[in-house]
């Protein structure tokens, strides 16, 4: 399925949408297509909103953000996000200037809290218990953080509610046509997010024959029977990365600090790199030499024996 068709079919206005991947394997291609298709009122969930949700917030796709760490890892801030939530005191003119196109609701956890929300969703439990948030202000800021009493010890434990998105989109190194998906390197919470979700779209660097998957079944993270669509989109994670395929574009992450700080530059970025191209292939053509700069070196591991 093309990315255009997958987004048209599985992402609707008002949906709860997850694009997961912790630094690694973030599907920017999917985020850009959602922007191009001008989806609105989305509830965007991710541990780390990262540049992709900053772009989607700037483009007006988001009604609400559910997250646990909203920064530009190693480089600075997500300024579109910050403009949407900051309210500088005593300077009403600045405040008006900084106000976003639409107000952004936030629902905030810690990483563990988000992981636990996905785990509960994947296990079809209404909550997940965790030992966390004692003596912090997070449960005050977010009343959805609640508590249960252990029936054995009487201890009070924090709980978070299950997160069951309408659609989860994950990027992976490879899948077969049935959607059996293999990834390696950092795995984040993709498995939990996929199992928690009503629909799952997998975007891959390579579509491989079923035999490739079956040769190493322990490498499969998401089984095809929970996958609704497989989209083949090489370099679909750039400026994020795909271990074994291409490196993270750290220069772009650093550049985002300046781009996102300036609404005009951000608009220009969206116009050129997102709205201005029809698809990921065209996006890549905008930056000649990108592939050569970031293409992964070779560090192959040996195989193992599955015989008996």
């Amino acid at each position: 399925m093309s990315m255009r068709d997958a987004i048209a079919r599985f992402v609707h206005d008002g949906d709860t949408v997850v694009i997961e991947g912790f630094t690694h394997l973030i599907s920017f291609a999917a985020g850009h297509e959602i922007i191009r298709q001008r989806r609105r009122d989305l509830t965007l969930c991710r541990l780390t909103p990262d540049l992709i949700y900053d772009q989607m917030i700037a483009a007006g796709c988001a009604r609400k953000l559910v997250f646990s760490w909203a920064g530009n890892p190693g480089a600075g801030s997500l300024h579109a996000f910050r403009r949407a939530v900051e309210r500088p005191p005593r300077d009403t003119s600045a405040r008006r200037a900084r106000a976003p196109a639409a107000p952004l609701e936030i629902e905030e956890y810690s990483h563990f809290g988000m992981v636990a929300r996905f785990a509960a969703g994947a296990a079809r439990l209404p909550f997940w218990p965790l030992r966390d948030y004692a003596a912090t202000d997070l449960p005050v800021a977010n009343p959805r953080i609640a508590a249960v009493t252990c029936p054995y010890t009487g201890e009070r434990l924090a709980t978070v509610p299950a997160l069951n998105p309408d659609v989860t989109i994950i990027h992976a190194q490879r899948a077969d046509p049935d959607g059996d998906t293999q990834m390696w390197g950092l795995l984040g919470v993709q498995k939990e997010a996929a199992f928690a979700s009503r629909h799952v779209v997998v975007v891959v660097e390579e579509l491989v024959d079923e035999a490739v998957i079956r040769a190493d079944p322990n490498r499969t993270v998401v089984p095809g029977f929970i996958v609704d669509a497989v989209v083949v989109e090489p370099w679909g994670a750039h400026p994020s990365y795909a271990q074994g395929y291409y490196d993270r574009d750290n220069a772009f992450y650093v550049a985002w600090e300046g781009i996102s700080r300036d609404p005009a530059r951000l608009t220009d970025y969206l116009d050129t790199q997102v709205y201005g191209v029809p698809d990921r292939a065209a996006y890549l053509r905008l930056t000649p030499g990108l592939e050569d700069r970031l293409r992964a070196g070779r560090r192959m591991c040996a195989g193992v024996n599955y015989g008996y």
Partner: protein
Amino acid sequence: MATDATAGARGGTPRPAATAATGATGATGATGATIAPREYSPSEMMVVTAARELRDGEVVFVGIGLPNLACNLARATHAPRLVLIYESGAVGAVPDRLPVSIGDPSLVTGARMVAAMADVFQYILQNGRIEVGFLGAAQIDRWGNINTTVVGPYDAPSVRLPGSGGAAEIATHARRTIVVSKLSRRAFPEAVDFVTSPGHAYHGVRRAAPSLPGGGPLKVITDRGVLEPDPATGELVLTALYPGIAAADVARDVGWPLRWPTPLPTVDPPPAEHIRLLRERLDPDHLFLKG
């Protein structure tokens, strides 16, 4: 109770001299000559001081920047068997470049293990397997509470910071949390605007297991000296100074009446070899050792 401590005047009733930063590992000496303050930067001194907190073989939950450099310095010197775990899931990483994010691919290539994040938080961190956790802090207050969420009110912040990430869990579960933060009045208020990660007292109640099984922020390593919680009250007190720094230089940028014992130990200056390692091998481009 925490309220006992609020009466203590600056410099008065010193806490019993707990392990000063210098006592941790005996990192100096073996590698020879130390150097004068003008020959190393405050950031370098912070890294060296943090490295001394680590014991060989310990399991450390580490972030990017100065803590990462501190761990690498410890591994290159007295703690070669330190196990580094990043919240991204990389265990035992041996990056061949300086990672700019905790999710850098160089942390995976050649690592001992890649753990899914559900396992990192449940089976490693909540399980109590982390001996040392490093945290930064936009603000840290008198009771060791850490804020990385907002400046100003939560619903209308003047500055929106990134939030917890894994910080709340680290401060909850790591046996010892080490905070690395440069001194400033803004960063060391009497009370933080928002408690993202738990310190030693919250609204007057001291931290305790089982809800807070870890030790909390037991060392706060600044660019001028080291703060530690008074075991009796949980209040952060100055327990060691860097060479050439006076206690008043620290107290000036701390938002509460800072206390310290007399005499106040001075941290050994960094061995020349450690500074060389940092500059030539561990951060050759001075990516993190700017100031």
